[in-house]
């Protein structure tokens, strides 16, 4: 174990823990006993805070360890993360502004809230809510993989205690401060990450003899790997690369935690400006991805994981350990570990808000007060983190990894109800529900037929479906979410006229809601909390 690295990581962890608890008092508007306060930081974040919050939310510790590890293992295909995060923002630019406006007007906290109000269907709302929660849970578990990679690289491979302590502390300040904690910690996280990445992409190539040497070392080593990778794509990988990038981009802002980040912004203008500024993070991600090749050039071999086998997710921490002096490696490790805490906090808050607003409130306690709502959300955020911890400790990491691949494919199935819903009410609520169900079912059926040769799993081994399944003589594969969301949309469109005789739900939104800006009056104006409204009608 490296004492200097360990000491610095502990010091940084103590710093953000302090910030996490102090955050409860930051920009506080009276009470935290309201979901708008605990779960959305008072809907008050300006451009800077939103930029750090959403960036800290979407570019997770798992991204930092997994993207370079993928590039290390398979070469060019792993670089899909760059086009993915380039196109995500132009795609959601217009829709995110509309979602913010309608949520501001109607007091919506989650995407499922919006769907229930827009389509007048609690059933559809619950479907959207469950999809979001199921897709988020393994993502939270994966954040622990980021922390675990750091712990292993420092040289602690024998036990899980550091991980458990980290998550208990995280759970405590998320409980007390809500979304303000990760928002404030995100400043520390991203500042550290930027410093580490900038130093890494200058200092490591300098030590290794330049980018020329790095890329030629990778060009030599990649074809010998099990994946038979290369510096460029094989022709048969084009479809996988495009659909993975495009599909992941479509899925990104459908995740509950991404919606939480958007809705916590103080104005429609803040959302639009952020969509234009957030891709700056992609530059960092692009260079991070290249750390995979630097690890090849530096002759890095992955450290052993807690299961005794080499864990390829450790290559970035091990690279830092080899290339940096101990004190800077410690800072880098701290950055990765904190990078796990911010998204884990936001994800658990988002999942908890979704449960409270879209399952607990409509089905279990329609009369819940605003205070009770906030309390339920706080408790659920603890349960969610605890559940994720159990998955990592008692099932295994591979389960979380496989599941996360599925996450994007599942979450993209809510696109017609949410995104089309922002623009039109043409679709019938039952047709949308049928399309969603078919999309999920067919996705799972297709995922069953994806083996993973590296882990010897026959099923659920990845998200790429070989076109040879439908008799095409090709090695090409497609990211499953794309064909299944197309089926979902086609079915919803085809069934809409069929269901025309069934009653349509009442639309609680108005066309003008979709253009509202901060300062416009909220519906049913002020002192009435969502819970009380439910009682009075």
């Amino acid at each position, binding site marked *: 174990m490296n004492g200097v690295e360990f000491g610095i990581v502990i010091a940084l962890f103590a710093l953000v823990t302090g910030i996490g608890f102090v955050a409860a008092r930051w920009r506080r508007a009276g009470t935290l006993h309201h979901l708008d306060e605990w779960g959305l930081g008072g809907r008050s974040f300006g451009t800077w805070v939103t930029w750090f919050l959403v960036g800290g939310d979407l570019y997770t510790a798992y991204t930092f360890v997994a993207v370079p590890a993928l590039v290390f293992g398979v070469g060019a295909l792993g670089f899909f993360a760059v*086009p993915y995060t380039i196109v995500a923002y132009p795609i959601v630019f217009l829709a995110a502004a509309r979602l913010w406006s309608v949520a501001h007007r109607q007091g919506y906290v989650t995407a499922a809230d919006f769907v229930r109000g827009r389509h007048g269907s609690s059933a559809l709302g619950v479907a959207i809510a469950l999809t979001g929660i199921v897709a988020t849970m393994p993502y939270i578990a994966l954040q622990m993989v980021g922390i675990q990679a750091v712990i292993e690289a420092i040289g602690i491979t024998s036990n899980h205690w550091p991980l458990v302590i980290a998550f208990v502390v995280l759970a405590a300040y998320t409980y007390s401060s809500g979304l303000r904690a990760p928002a404030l910690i995100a400043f520390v996280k991203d500042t550290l990450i930027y410093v580490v990445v900038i130093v890494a992409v200058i200092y490591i190539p300098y030590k290794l003899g330049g980018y020329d040497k790095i890329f030629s070392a990778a060009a030599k080593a990649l074809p010998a790997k099990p994946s038979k990778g290369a510096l460029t794509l094989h022709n048969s990988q084009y479809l996988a690369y495009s659909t993975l990038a495009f599909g992941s981009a479509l899925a990104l802002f459908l995740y509950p935690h991404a919606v939480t980040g958007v809705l916590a912004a103080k104005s429609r203008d803040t959302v639009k400006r952020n969509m234009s*500024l957030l891709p700056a993070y992609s530059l960092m991600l692009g260079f991070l991805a290249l750390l995979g090749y630097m690890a090849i050039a530096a002759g890095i071999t992955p450290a052993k994981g807690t299961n005794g086998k080499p864990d390829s997710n450790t290559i970035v921490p091990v690279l830092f350990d080899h290339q940096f002096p101990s004190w800077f490696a410690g800072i880098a490790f701290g950055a990765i570990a904190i990078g796990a805490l911010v998204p884990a906090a936001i994800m658990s808050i988002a999942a908890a808000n979704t449960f409270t607003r879209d399952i607990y409130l409509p089905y279990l306690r329609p009369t819940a007060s605003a205070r009770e709502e906030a309390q339920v959300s706080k408790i659920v955020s603890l349960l969610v983190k605890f559940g994720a911890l159990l998955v990592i400790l008692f099932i295994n990491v591979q389960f979380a990894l496989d599941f996360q691949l599925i996450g994007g494919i599942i979450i993209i199935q809510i696109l017609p109800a949410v995104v089309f819903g922002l623009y039109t009410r043409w679709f019938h609520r039952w047709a949308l529900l049928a399309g969603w169900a078919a999309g999920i079912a067919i996705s799972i059926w297709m995922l069953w037929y994806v083996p993973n040769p590296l882990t010897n799993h026959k099923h659920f081994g990845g998200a790429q479906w070989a076109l040879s399944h439908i008799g095409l003589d090709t090695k090409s594969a497609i990211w499953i979410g794309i064909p299944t969301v197309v089926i979902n949309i086609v079915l919803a469109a085809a069934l809409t006229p069929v269901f025309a005789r069934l009653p349509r739900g009442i639309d609680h939104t108005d066309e003008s809601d979709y253009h509202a800006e901060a300062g416009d009056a909220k519906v049913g104006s002020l002192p009435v909390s969502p819970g*009380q409204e439910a009682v009075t009608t």
Partner: protein
Amino acid sequence: MSEHPKHSSSGQPDPTARPARPRSGRLNFRPINLLLLIPLIGTLPPMFYNRTAPSIGGMPFFYWYQLLWIPISVTLTYVVYRATRGER
């Protein structure tokens, strides 16, 4: 499944409960929004850039080309943001 009664609020006339109102389709779509499509065209078909030459500073074309699209994408999205700012 039933309507959730939530937002049709308390007593006062509710400005949103107007299901019979014809939708005017106020989409306000401006052609400048089409700039948002350019990054998709530039980065999603890998056959456009799947080669190593020319490399810059040792970095193969495949990599610097995609990294170059980040500032281009930021610029285009920012132009759309500025052009549509204040519009609803």
